[in-house]
């Protein structure tokens, strides 16, 4: 097994541990239902019977008690973050090792492409988690996605190192794929923020089915929504640039800047959907929740392009190998 394989195993395991820690934090962390129930019980015992009727908080109400009363589980969230940092370092090592071994940018085939895109998403996420402690719970969605994507990359997509096929031997390879990966990483984190916003705002609106009960654990809805918008607003021009650079490259490689190849079709679809998101976000008569759902659809079209198109359709983009 090449050296990147060792790091890859570490990466995926790292994200898995981080995921478990995040999940445990949801279950047993200071804000969790279980923890609060325990705290409440203790209070009830201390305060005696009558308080039950009068002062018992609604099970879903925000915790009024400072979480410090449950020291056992306060380390879960920081631990999850630290493990994410470790997994991210292994992730970086995986991509670097692969890149060194191949002697080129690490996005010559789908395995390398997915690994680099997800690495960027982790970097963006950690940056935000440091700057905005309020969003750290969002990590569960992120590492969950990372486990899935890096896992699929490692188990299904991984291929031995090979030099680039002649079609990829171009400066546009760096420009086009680099910008597309960057935008994808940003969209991924933006998507996670949108999901968080949808759950939290749904919870605030009284929804209690599905995932909505978890909403009470998440950052404030407005923060998540803002964050999501800013990430999308950053990603969209980069995506636009990446698609335009792809068109310039296609002109040199295939003789036409746009030919409705399946990858091009789905890049166009994502672009249109994200433009729709920005419009919806800017229109006061469209609710923020509708806009967030559009962002979620946008991410689904991105996934369709990444996996669906490479696997189900054949087009000019299929040279990198699935």
């Amino acid at each position, binding site marked *: 097994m090449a050296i990147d394989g060792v790091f890859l195993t570490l990466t995926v395991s790292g994200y898995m541990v981080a995921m478990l820690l995040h999940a445990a934090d949801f279950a047993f962390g200071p804000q969790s239902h279980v923890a609060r129930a325990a705290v409440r019980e203790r209070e009830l015992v201390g305060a005696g019977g009558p308080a039950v009727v009068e002062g018992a908080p609604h099970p879903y109400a925000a915790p009024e008690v400072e979480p410090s009363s449950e020291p056992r589980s306060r380390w879960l969230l920081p631990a999850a973050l630290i493990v994410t940092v470790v997994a991210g370092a292994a992730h970086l090592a995986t991509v670097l090792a692969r890149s060194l071994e191949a002697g080129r940018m690490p996005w010559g085939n789908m395995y390398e492409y997915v690994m680099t895109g997800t690495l960027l998403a982790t970097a963006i996420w950690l940056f935000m988690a440091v700057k905005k402690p309020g969003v750290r719970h969002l990590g569960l969605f992120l590492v969950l996605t990372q486990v899935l994507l890096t896992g699929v990359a490692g188990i299904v997509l991984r291929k031995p190192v090979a030099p680039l*096929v002649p079609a990829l031997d171009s400066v546009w390879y760096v420009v086009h794929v680099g910008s597309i990966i960057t935008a994808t990483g940003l969209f991924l984190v933006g998507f996670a923020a949108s999901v968080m916003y949808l759950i939290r705002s749904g919870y605030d609106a009284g929804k209690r089915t599905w995932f909505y009960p978890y909403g009470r654990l998440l950052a404030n809805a407005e923060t998540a929504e803002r964050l999501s918008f800013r990430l999308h*607003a950053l990603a969209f021009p980069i995506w636009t640039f990446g698609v335009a650079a792809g068109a310039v490259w296609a002109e040199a490689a*295939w*003789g*036409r*800047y746009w030919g409705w190849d399946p990858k091009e079709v789905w890049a166009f679809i994502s672009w249109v959907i994200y433009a729709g998101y920005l419009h919806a976000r800017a229109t006061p008569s469209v609710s923020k929740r509708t806009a967030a759902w559009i962002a979620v659809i946008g991410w689904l079209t991105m996934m369709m392009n990444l996996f669906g198109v490479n696997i189900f*359709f054949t087009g000019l983009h299929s040279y990198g190998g699935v």
Partner: protein
Amino acid sequence: MKPALAFLRNSWRQLTSMRTALVLLFLLAIGAIPGSILPQRRLGETPVQQYFIENPKLAPVLDQLGFFDVYAAPWFAAIYLLLFTSLVGCVLPRLRDHVRALIKTPPEAPKRLERLPQHTVYGTHPTLDFKGWRKVRREHPDGSVTISAEKGYLKETGNLLFHSSLLVILAGVAIGAQWGWNGQRILIEGADKPFCNVLYQYDRPVLGPYVSASDLPPFCLELEDFQASYLENGQATSFEATVNGGQKFRVNHPLRLDGANVYLLGHGYAIEARYTDAAGRVQQVTAAFPDNNDMMASIGVLLFPDANGGDPKNQIGFEGIYLPTAEGASSLHPEERNPRLTLIPWKGDIGLDAGIPQNVYVLDTKRMTPFGERKTLKKGETQTLPDGSKLEFLGTRSFIAISVRHDPGEPIVLTGAVLLLVGLPLSLYGKRRRVWLRLHPDGTAEAGGLPKTDYPGFADEFEKVTRWQSTESFSPSR
């Protein structure tokens, strides 16, 4: 008359509303999907025919609705044309308002500055440096003075630029479709196999409605050399073609000629063979075997229409498989390390002179009968057929598949894309905001600030702008 006008005005208002734009954007995205799922004529006819065979009931219906050429279908055009109409209807009034805003001075300060999101008061008249702001100073009868300052016009400029650039791109695409042309062609190595840029020499020419055959620029190409290099596992690392006395081009680096570009799309082996019929007449061909895989296992045909006196019932044709590095029925490497040519002979009507243009790379054996054994040859070997005629495998040459194109819309589309990329960040990150300063006659002063767009950092900026920076003594007249 009146209700009709009202209806028109209402429809126009509906069409140019943001909600309609949103719906149309969604329709556009959904409308694009079938083009990635169903086979498209623009990418090749064969998969479409295959689809017709597999879905004989559904395919004609889909065809009627344009689903095999989605991006040229009337309903797809209807979506984007409505969207662009809506866009124009949206951009024009905004353009007018924006120009007005640029000409007009920033508006007078609101009466009650303390109601604004940002507000601060001074005990004396401050000297504020509104550097980089558009500002106007107004004196009032009651002795007070107001300064209105505004910034961030680039946001709206960017927005208008961005939306207009979409129209530029659309125009470029349309011009390319009307005045562009392209064709594909196989070019075999050798001075005896030149290609000249005339319409009938192309396999699949496509001319825009405003292009005629005589508009094609005159030039000829002659393939002098083709070099491909491969790894040991057969993966290609480079291809390079040399034409016309040393002009080289390769994948990603087309040959740019005056009035057309030549792109290297593929390559393969062409088989040279000589057929000597029973009467001793000799015919020689060089036939490209264009249907090849990664290891260059190639399929093609050798046609000898003039064999046996050219009698349509006694023409000779061979179906062939060429393996450059043969190992059983497959090729292990694209280079010629152990070349083998396997031929299946047929006799009868090849159909070449039936007047129907047909694919010269497959043999139509409908009016033919098998003629002897299938045989595998090395270079230089000869196969003898039942009537004593002979086929000799002389050798191979390289061929390249090229696409020749001219698209006059390209520079326009590129310009549009650049404008779009300039306008987009301005529009997304620009922030329109206003700050007012009111100097009261009693010597006190106050300032207020209003962000016109979502702008979390405005408080900081307001604080900076309204901090009294001047160390000079106070001068109320400035």
